[in-house]
């Protein structure tokens, strides 16, 4: 990926051709929902005609299909939005294009970003490029797979409860979730509005950082967008002297997968050699993060997805054909949403319904406050960053968790708490076990993305992420 900014550069047409060839070769992964050589060529010509080369000049980028674009459909991998093309671009899309990036493809995902394996797409599961029998993680599995397969150097996903860090870990790429509010959600189809963050995959820390520097920053079109400057490119560092890293004991249970443990132990030893100081800390409410998340997120989803009712977007179904407007709503939604989305809408509606609101939703809000407070207390006590495994195991086999929704939810056990607290965090490849990638998670205080990325770049420079960690 080039780094030249300012000077006018060509290369768009060539990038379009090469990217198209790579997309075609990767079709068996089922990682894309919409792309065409014509659209790529148009993007190539557009960036070649730009007066000045931006920081992402002629860089092809894939977008998760819940980020709306005028040039391609945006379906959220759901039948309920089949054929829908947005009348406007998401803010991040406009910013990327202005910086010279080429929108290469819309990536497959779990329907409406609900899932941890990208098996819940209405358009079929995505395969992990490292092992086609395994899942790429989710919900941004298509974006992760495209970067892992070398089709694009960078891609956008979205996080509600770990949907970029977890697939980054499963696919062996970098995945960065910024602080809540740091990247505009304008044009991201809403799932859990108090949690949703557009996030970035990259083949390297530097490339992910470049994308973040372009898409972050205040957006007047989005009420939760914070008035902070864009994320600066990190000062890439070679050592970690003077940095204190906390190891939360709740994230290193005795029964942690041995490959994950070996990889995190090796990464910790490497960071210690680079000069970092480690300290064991506690985040006592983290064990409640998954149940808390599975109350808060479905509740918000039940409200957000009420808009998909057959009136304004997508295909319309009505049974009986002469039925009233409620028959329209119920049939369209019953037909258009897949099984996991239906489950979450029902759970969300249940926890918000009369008689249950206090014991579920209010209780979850209390726990969320305590989870966020745990992080604040640790960071206020002299810890600069936290380091944990990103996932409890490497990528699991397709179908392995399909029958038990709760088993699937627990794949996000190490990533959920950060989302509830709104903090920035990232997953970095730190080794392989039996050929499968393992990710290490770095968690930072609010708005400390540049420091977090700098730590990651130091580790990236030393750790052999493709080496087996157990002999």
């Amino acid at each position, binding site marked *: 990926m080039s780094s030249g900014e300012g000077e006018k550069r060509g290369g768009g047409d060539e990038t379009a051709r090469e990217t198209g060839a790579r997309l075609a070769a990767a079709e068996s992964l089922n990682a894309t929902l919409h792309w065409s050589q014509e659209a790529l060529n148009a993007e190539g010509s557009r960036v070649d005609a730009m007066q000045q080369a931006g920081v992402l000049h002629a860089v092809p980028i894939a977008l998760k299909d819940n980020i709306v674009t005028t040039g391609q459909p945006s379906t959220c991998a759901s039948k309920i939005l089949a054929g829908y093309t947005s009348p406007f671009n998401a803010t991040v899309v406009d910013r990327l294009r202005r910086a010279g990036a080429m929108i290469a493809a819309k990536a497959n995902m779990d329907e409406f970003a609900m899932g941890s394996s990208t098996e819940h797409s209405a358009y079929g599961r995505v395969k992990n490029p490292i092992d086609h029998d395994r899942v790429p993680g989710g919900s941004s599995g298509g974006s992760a797979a495209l970067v892992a397969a070398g089709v694009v150097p960078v891609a956008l996903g979205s996080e509600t409860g770990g949907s970029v860090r977890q697939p980054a870990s499963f696919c062996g790429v970098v995945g960065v979730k910024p602080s809540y509010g740091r990247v505009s959600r304008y044009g991201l189809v809403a799932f859990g509005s108090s949690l949703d963050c557009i996030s970035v995959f990259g083949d390297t820390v530097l490339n992910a950082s470049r994308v973040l520097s372009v898409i972050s920053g205040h957006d007047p079109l989005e*009420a939760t967008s914070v008035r902070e400057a864009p994320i600066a490119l990190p000062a890439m560092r070679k050592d970690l002297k003077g940095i204190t890293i906390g190891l939360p004991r709740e994230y290193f249970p005795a029964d942690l997968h041995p490959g994950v443990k070996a990889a995190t132990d090796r990464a910790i030893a490497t960071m210690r050699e680079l000069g970092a100081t480690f300290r064991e800390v506690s985040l006592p409410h983290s064990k409640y993060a998954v149940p*808390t998340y599975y109350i808060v997120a479905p509740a918000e989803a039940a409200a957000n997805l009420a808009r998909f009712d057959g009136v304004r977007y997508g295909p319309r179904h009505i049974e009986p054909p002469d039925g009233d407007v409620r028959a329209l709503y119920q049939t369209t939604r*019953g037909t258009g949403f897949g099984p996991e989305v239906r489950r979450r809408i029902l759970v*969300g*509606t249940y926890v918000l319904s009369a008689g249950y609101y206090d014991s579920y939703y209010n209780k*979850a809000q209390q726990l969320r*406050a*305590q989870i966020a407070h745990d992080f604040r207390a640790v960071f206020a006590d002299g810890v600069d960053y936290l380091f944990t495994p990103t996932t409890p195991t490497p990528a699991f086999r397709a179908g392995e968790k399909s029958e038990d929704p709760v088993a699937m939810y627990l794949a996000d056990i190490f990533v959920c708490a950060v989302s509830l607290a709104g903090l920035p965090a990232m997953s970095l490849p730190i080794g392989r076990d039996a050929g499968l990638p393992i990710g290490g998670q770095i968690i930072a205080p609010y708005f400390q993305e540049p420091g977090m990325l700098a730590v990651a770049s130091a580790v990236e420079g030393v750790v052999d992420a493709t080496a087996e960690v157990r002999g």
Partner: protein
Amino acid sequence: MSIGKEEVVHVARLAELAVSEAELQKLADQLSRIVDFVAELNEVPADTSAPPFQAGPAMTPLREDIVSPVPLARGPGSFAPVFIDGFFVVPRLGPMEEE
């Protein structure tokens, strides 16, 4: 704690979501599994000592009250199922309240 078929029907009606008789038992089983799992939170003693969590800025920033519409690449007629004379067309309204 378990959710029965009748409760699934009730919640599905609140959510305006058609569910078929054939899938009711499976949904009841799955929702029970999920709700029993999240009910773990009830083992935590009530504690409101932590300040309430608020996502995003402490105060919603206001912008000047100036109309500045985002230019649309295409009109609603291009994606709405039925759009006539500037209106989204829906079937007749039925009773919105349960008897």
